[in-house]
């Protein structure tokens, strides 16, 4: 069941939705093919990029005003060896030190905010703290409800709460783990 009203509390939203709708699948937003997305996310050896399609309250029922607004950060999965993409040894001819450097240093994650028409990508290497990251979210998403994004208990307040999905597919509150 999808809520058409705009409840502000993420928690109440969660409890009133069906299990099916809270189920998270892998894939690009708006597309049904989760398998291709899964391949893409693990297709990069060492690349820390995982795509999560937030299907909470979406899948055709998406209405701009009808969804909960949570800013989500998709956490990077540990780099798994690529199953799908066949890579020729020694191609492209890029020095290993350069390949490693690029792999290590590009830590792009996708950021989705419900209600935003498209996702953004940020490079985690460019930030030295959570606060900086959250500030940048404000800039990226132009949140109309611009409360200072304090990390608050979900139960208490109806604010934008940054969350992310870790590699065990659990939704985690941003801020518990030290930045590095």
């Amino acid at each position, binding site marked *: 069941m999808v809520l058409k009203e705009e409840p502000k509390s993420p928690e109440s939203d969660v409890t009133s939705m069906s299990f099916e709708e809270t189920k998270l699948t892998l894939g690009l937003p708006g597309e049904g093919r989760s398998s291709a997305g899964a391949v893409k996310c693990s297709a990069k050896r060492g690349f820390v990029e995982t795509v999560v399609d937030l299907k909470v309250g979406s899948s055709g029922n998406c209405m701009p005003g009808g969804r909960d607004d949570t800013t989500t950060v998709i956490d990077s999965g540990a780099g798994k060896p690529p199953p799908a993409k066949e890579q020729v*040894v020694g191609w492209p001819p890029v020095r290993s*030190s350069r390949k490693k450097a690029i792999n290590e240093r590009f830590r792009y994650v996708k950021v989705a905010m419900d209600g935003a028409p498209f996702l953004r990508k940020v490079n985690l290497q460019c930030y030295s703290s959570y606060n900086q990251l959250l500030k940048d979210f404000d800039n990226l998403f132009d949140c109309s409800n611009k409360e200072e994004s304090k990390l608050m208990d979900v139960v208490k307040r109806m604010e934008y709460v940054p969350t992310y999905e870790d590699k065990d597919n659990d939704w985690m509150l941003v801020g518990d783990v030290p930045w590095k």
Partner: protein
Amino acid sequence: MNYFPDEVVEHVFDFITSHKDRNSVSLVCKSWYKIERYSRQRVFIGNCYSITPQRLIARFPGLKSLTLKGKPHFADFNLVPHDWGGFVDPWIKALAKSRIGLEELRLKRMVVSDDSLELLSKSFPNFKSLVLVSCEGFTTDGVAAIAANCRFLRELDLQENEVEDHRGHWLSCFPESCTSLVSLNFACLKGEINLASLERLVARSPNLKSLRLNRVVPLDTLQKLLMRAPQLVDLGIGSYVDDPSSEVFSKLKAVIQLCNSIRSLSGFLEVAPCCMSAIYPICENLTFLNLSYAPGLQGNDLTKLVQHCRKLQRLWILDCIGDKGLGVVASTCKELQELRVFPSDPFDAGNAAVTEEGLVLISAGCPKLNSLLYFCHQMTNAALITVAKNCTNFIRFRLCILDPVKADPVTNQPLDEGFGAIVRSNKSLKRLSLSGLLTDQVFLYIGMYAKKLEMLSIAFAGDSNKGMLYVLNGCKKLRKLEIRDCPFGDVALLEDMGKYETMRSLWMSSCEVTLGACKTLAKKMPSLNVEIINESEQLEFSLDDRLLVDKMYLYRTLVGHRKDKPEYVLLL
């Protein structure tokens, strides 16, 4: 000239500095050979297995500066297994035993141990300069020995090495009495260093001109270092992340304005785009800019920066600059001679960052362009023909289309005509790397027109032996040929065996060369070492001569088989 005493001739030779010229001079007559060898101070050895250290020492007793290269070029791309060779240890041991007053050692693709570094540091009281490029096998302990023991060290330059980092103390090993540093590059080290030691070192090095930091050096240390060394000419920034509203950042902005000698800028191993504006004041004077290790700088950030760099001669950048960004480069950097565009996503050919369009724009806007390394997602014959019309000064032209056998996407044709145009119009071309869909035809063109070509790299190209033969017959100046995954076989390999004596080396992997042909070649040409790398389970080399060889590396040598080969290498 024979009427002059030796000292006069020697003095004349002082003005002849290039290796090629000195080599030629030594061949004129016995007398010149003798004078030349005693006065020779700098020696370059392109293949460490072509000669022994003992013979080097015997011929050039006045040696001060030695350059050595070890593994074949394709080792950079993981095509050469571990422990193949290229050990510097026997060289350092031999030099240490001798009376050579070594002052400078430059190594590329060699295996260097901590013991070697320690021996080096203790054996040559006047040792001044160590440059290690793409080397491996040592740790920061070896670096510490150099720092501690080389009292007159001027240059410690570590470029793209695999160094095991034992964290931090090496920098503190420079004694307080060491004030001679001119160049320090430790950008490739991964570990922590003592920042206070670094500041003190820079403070007591008034001659320091080149400083390249590693990733752990934060912005506020950078600011302090620049305060101490505003005379720097070459700066490699480590971490460049801060809050632009911070006090530290304001201080940095102020001190950068004082650094008006900086001509070369690199690093940004960690970077926050919002901080880049502090760099603009020094951009005006830059001649070399290397942002190829700077993640997170998007096309816009790069473009904004480049717009300030009107005197740029060399630019190394990631492909996220995009074709449009390259257009900005083309309209801003009129002095550009060298451009290298690296892939930011080597494994995913899906994100088209630069295409043939960017290259065409550059060729149209930068008349002085002579050196190119360009990774892109596609290329067309039309674009290459246009580039060939616009640029006739190329010395190095290396094009890498990320999808190995991609045809011209517009016409679906091979890229023979495009590359043909390049070699036809660039008569000074010395180095060429090909990619994309290519037939024997491109090699016909190369053989016909690339008369000055010295190094050629080929992958996934050609149809038959004819391709390789066109090159071997036509390119009279060829020194290094490296081929992978091409249908070239025994006929091509054996047609002109004497040719390989005029070359430094030939590499062929995943081609169609048989063991029998390699044996024939080795037998007929004792001046060549023919090495087979066999990594498969079968160590039985007495197999069928019809067996296709996986990797073959041959090189001319004066000293026969090397004694340090690993098990998987067969010397024929």
